């Protein structure tokens, strides 16, 4: 213990005062010859133990109080040796960068690496001389800076450190160090330093250090992991696919597992959880650094709604975040599709609905598909139908057109494809309320399109689709460049007459010429989708392209307003999700795994009527709801999504020392470790107050005896 004013310790002599008073008091006792000594001694024996204890306690309390006062005035402090970088003792400008990526949440003793990093950052901040300017940044991708201006206010930095929590995001050191470098560029101090607290995992350094080769600040890395070997196991991926062999609602859950250890793992427990309840368990052997797979078959029920959280969990290790992975699946409502075959043929593969019905039956296994000829269709036949497809129908009867208007307005879906038999004039007249755009003249392609490598092509002139917009929910499941869709060739298609701009109408696909290929329109509670070409091979080879099945499946789902019984979109922590407004929805609400709700208003949406949701810090299922103009809330399960860990954070590989950006050592060998001063007078003052209270209580008790 050390003292700021040691001369005041002379006051400790006051501690003998209570003893002197006690001794003098004894001498000043009145002598008395007393006859009833026996009674007196008996009384004394009866109370002596309590009385002596109280007297001793009183004496101790008074002595301690007398000693505490000069001790407090002498301002005692203790010096604790810390292992914070020696460089912290210089006058400087410093940016503290704290790695809050997912790997930092792994446990290290009783706390996590992130807690340890934060504690060390606190110690560093306290260690800095008072004239050091400080800023505070986080190293996870997409994180916002905590304190982005240099300031000498240590309390502010300490407060910001206290409020930090570890994220589940990927690390991005290049961005963090670049930002730190930019902050330090405006520093008044000659010494500019970046203090990085991290576990030195290689993940996050892929983009380099982000620092300029010349004039960059010094970087000091504090490896909070202590370079300890970290062995990890992770669930890399979870896929859910329909499994009709398991019965109605049957799903197959495929989990990919990884081992990051030197010895491998025997009998690693793998459990399947559905809606938080463990329903199956198995074991997997993993080779050192190898991969393993585990497949579960399970039957989902419709109890509690068709949506289910499917989770695969392995035996826990230090990093809990990657020991489980989630998928969210929605059981399809029974879809009843009525296909009106406008161009029946005797050869099955030439029949208009051949490819379309096959795509529906395979893409939506639970769907009930009925094909009828136009003369067999009556308005009554729409009663138990959820989707009507009019394929190359010459002209709908007026009764059918009126019935279809009622059907769609009430929430039904209508798919229209055209062909040689379509009478555009009659269609435009009878189906005006339903058509997204009036039908025009057919157009035949006049040029040969480019040819993809290895592609077997028809030699007719054709057009292709323009690049797709994956922000549209219907196209979100397609690969980034629309493979399987943009390769389709369109020899002929029907032009659509211009229609006034309307929020209810949107073009989903265009041809290269700019003409609309797939257009949708909201009518009442239902939707109408118009494909301006055929669904057989007469005008296009789209039906034999890989993208046809998912296109038909997604179109059917969107028209009926349900998702399929397979997993919904899965994002990595920190990734953004595009959410689309439909119809006259005024608000979208995202309910997060922690129960909080994020709200987007219609006014915030862009021209494609979508908003970007980026607060995907927490792992789990995010549910989307839409609020209509009249305040009615509707679930939007097709927009639900899950957020899982970016599994690159699971890899314990350490950063190659050659790639480290350290410019000076955290601690030079042989240098005296810095000391941290801990003021003790507060504690002493608290103890003294406690002693005074004890003394008062004992004195009062003595008087009451």
């Amino acid at each position, binding site marked *: 213990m050390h003292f700021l004013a040691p001369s005041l310790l002379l006051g400790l002599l006051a501690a003998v005062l209570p003893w002197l008073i006690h001794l003098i*008091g*004894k001498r*000043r*006792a*009145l*002598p*008395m*010859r*007393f*006859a*009833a*000594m*026996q*009674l*007196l*001694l*008996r*009384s*004394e024996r*009866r*109370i002596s133990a309590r*009385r002596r204890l109280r007297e001793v306690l009183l004496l101790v309390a008074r002595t301690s109080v007398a000693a505490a006062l000069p001790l407090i005035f002498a301002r005692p402090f203790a010096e604790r040796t810390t292992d914070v970088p020696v460089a912290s003792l210089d006058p400087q400008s410093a940016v503290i960068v704290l790695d809050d990526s997912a790997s930092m949440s792994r446990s290290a003793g009783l706390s996590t690496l992130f807690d340890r990093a934060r504690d060390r950052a606190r110690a560093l901040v306290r260690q800095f001389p008072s004239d050091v300017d400080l800023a505070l940044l986080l190293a996870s991708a997409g994180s916002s800076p905590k304190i982005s201006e240099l300031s000498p206010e240590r309390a502010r930095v300490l407060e910001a450190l206290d409020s930090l929590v570890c994220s589940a995001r990927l690390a991005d050191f290049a961005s963090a160090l670049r930002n730190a470098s930019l902050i330090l560029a405006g520093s008044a101090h000659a010494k500019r330093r970046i203090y990085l607290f991290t576990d030195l995992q290689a993940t996050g350094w892929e983009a380099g250090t982000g620092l300029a080769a010349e004039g960059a600040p010094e970087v000091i890395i504090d490896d909070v992991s202590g370079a300890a070997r970290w062995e990890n196991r992770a669930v890399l991926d979870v896929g859910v696919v329909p499994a009709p062999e398991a019965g109605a609602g049957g799903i197959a859950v495929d989990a990919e597992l990884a081992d990051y250890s030197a010895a491998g793992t025997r009998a690693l427990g793998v459990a399947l959880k559905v809606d938080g309840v463990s329903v199956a368990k198995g074991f997997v052997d993993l080779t050192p650094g190898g991969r393993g797979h585990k497949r579960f078959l399970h039957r989902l029920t419709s109890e509690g709604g068709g949506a289910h959280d499917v989770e695969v969990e392995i035996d826990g290790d230090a990093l809990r975040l990657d020991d489980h992975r989630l998928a969210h699946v929605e059981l399809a409502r029974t879809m009843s599709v009525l296909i009106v075959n406008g161009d029946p043929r005797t050869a099955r593969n030439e029949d208009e609905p051949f490819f379309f019905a096959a795509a529906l039956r395979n893409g939506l296994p639970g769907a009930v598909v009925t094909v009828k000829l136009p003369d067999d269709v009556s308005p009554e036949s729409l009663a138990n139908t959820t989707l009507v497809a009019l394929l190359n129908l010459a002209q709908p009867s007026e009764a059918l057109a009126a019935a279809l208007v009622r059907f769609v307005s009430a929430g039904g879906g209508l798919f229209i494809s055209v062909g040689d038999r379509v009478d555009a004039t009659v269609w435009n007249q009878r189906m005006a309320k339903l058509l997204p755009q009036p039908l025009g003249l057919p157009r035949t392609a006049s040029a040969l399109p480019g040819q993809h490598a290895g592609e077997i092509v028809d030699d007719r002139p054709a057009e292709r689709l323009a690049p797709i917009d994956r922000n549209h929910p219907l196209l979100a499941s397609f690969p980034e460049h629309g493979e399987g869709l943009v390769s389709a060739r369109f020899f002929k298609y029907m032009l659509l007459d211009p229609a006034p701009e309307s929020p209810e109408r949107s073009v989903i696909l265009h041809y290269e010429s700019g003409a609309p290929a797939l257009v949708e329109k909201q009518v009442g509670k239902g939707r109408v989708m118009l494909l301006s070409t055929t669904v057989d091979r007469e005008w296009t080879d789209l039906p034999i392209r890989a993208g046809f099945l998912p296109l038909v499946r997604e179109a059917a789902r969107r028209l009926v307003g349900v998702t399929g019984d397979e997993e919904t979109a899965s994002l990595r922590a920190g990734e953004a999700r595009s959410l689309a407004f439909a119809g006259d929805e005024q608000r979208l609400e995202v309910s997060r795994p922690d129960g909080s709700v994020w709200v987007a208003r219609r006014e915030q949406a862009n021209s494609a009527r979508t908003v970007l949701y980026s607060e995907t810090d927490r792992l789990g299922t995010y549910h989307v709801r839409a609020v209509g103009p009249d305040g009615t809330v509707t679930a939007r399960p097709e927009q639900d999504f899950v957020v899982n860990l970016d599994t690159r954070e699971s890899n314990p590989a350490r950063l190659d020392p050659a790639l480290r950006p350290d410019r000076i050592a955290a601690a030079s060998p042989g240098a005296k470790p810095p000391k941290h001063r801990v003021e003790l007078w507060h504690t002493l003052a608290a103890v003294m107050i406690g002693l005074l209270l004890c003394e008062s209580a004992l004195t009062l008790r*003595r*008087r009451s*005896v």
Partner: protein
Amino acid sequence: MLDPVDLARLASLDLRARTIVEGAFSGMHRNLHAGTSVEFTEHREYAPGDEIRRIDWKAVGRADRYYVKRFEDETEMHTFLVLDASASMGYRRRGISKLDYAGYLASALAYLVGQQGDAAGLLLFDENARSFLPPSTRPGQIREVFRLLEAAQPAGRTDAALALGHLGEQIDKRSLIIFMSDLLDCEPDEPGGGEARGPLPGRLRQLRARGHDVALFHLLDPDEVELPFDDLIFFEGMEPGDTRTLLAQAPDLAEAFGRESEAFRDRWRAACLEASVEYRFARTDAAPAEVLRAFLADRQRAVRF
């Protein structure tokens, strides 16, 4: 009735005794003895305190003076006043000492006995029998009792059992024995007496077994009842050879001391009850006449029933 301090201002013990007796007997008879025999022995001139029913009206008619009849028991009854004069009886802080107080009571009783023409004797003791005056009805006996009482000084240790043993050897007639002591350092439960009682209760029981009427006056100073001190006090024993000391904050001890003192008196009350000895407790700040009056009233009630 005068309190002990006022009595102390009176010039002589004789006067004090008379004052106490007059105070005690205002409005009541002064019959001390409980004896009732039917065998007439002699006449005695009437004295205040004699029962009216004992006046021999025939003798009054013959001699024109008042005479009362005396019966065998009454003429045979002697009164012994036994006083503890050990050093502890000298304790006083305010008022008078226990020995002085015992002297007031004893002189009043002696005066009363003398007035009734009975024989009164006196034994002053500490660890030995210090002064012994056999009972007698001779003229000057009461004055001799007063003289011895006035001359008595507290000194020496206490051995009440020894004194009562000595007394038991001296008296052969049925007597009233009035024993006055503070009984301090004398526990009724101390081993050595008969029937699991201490030596003093044993002696008292022996006296009762021989037909003596025994009354015990337990005298204590108010300080020995309440310990009403405020300071840190260094207590020392009073009697010779008593080396016991205690340094204590008196207020800390007061409550426990009060309980101990009360328990001590209760033990003696129980021991006396068991030995058929009349127990009377008196604080030295109580008016002696009141103590005497209560004593006599109880005895008269005992005669009637």
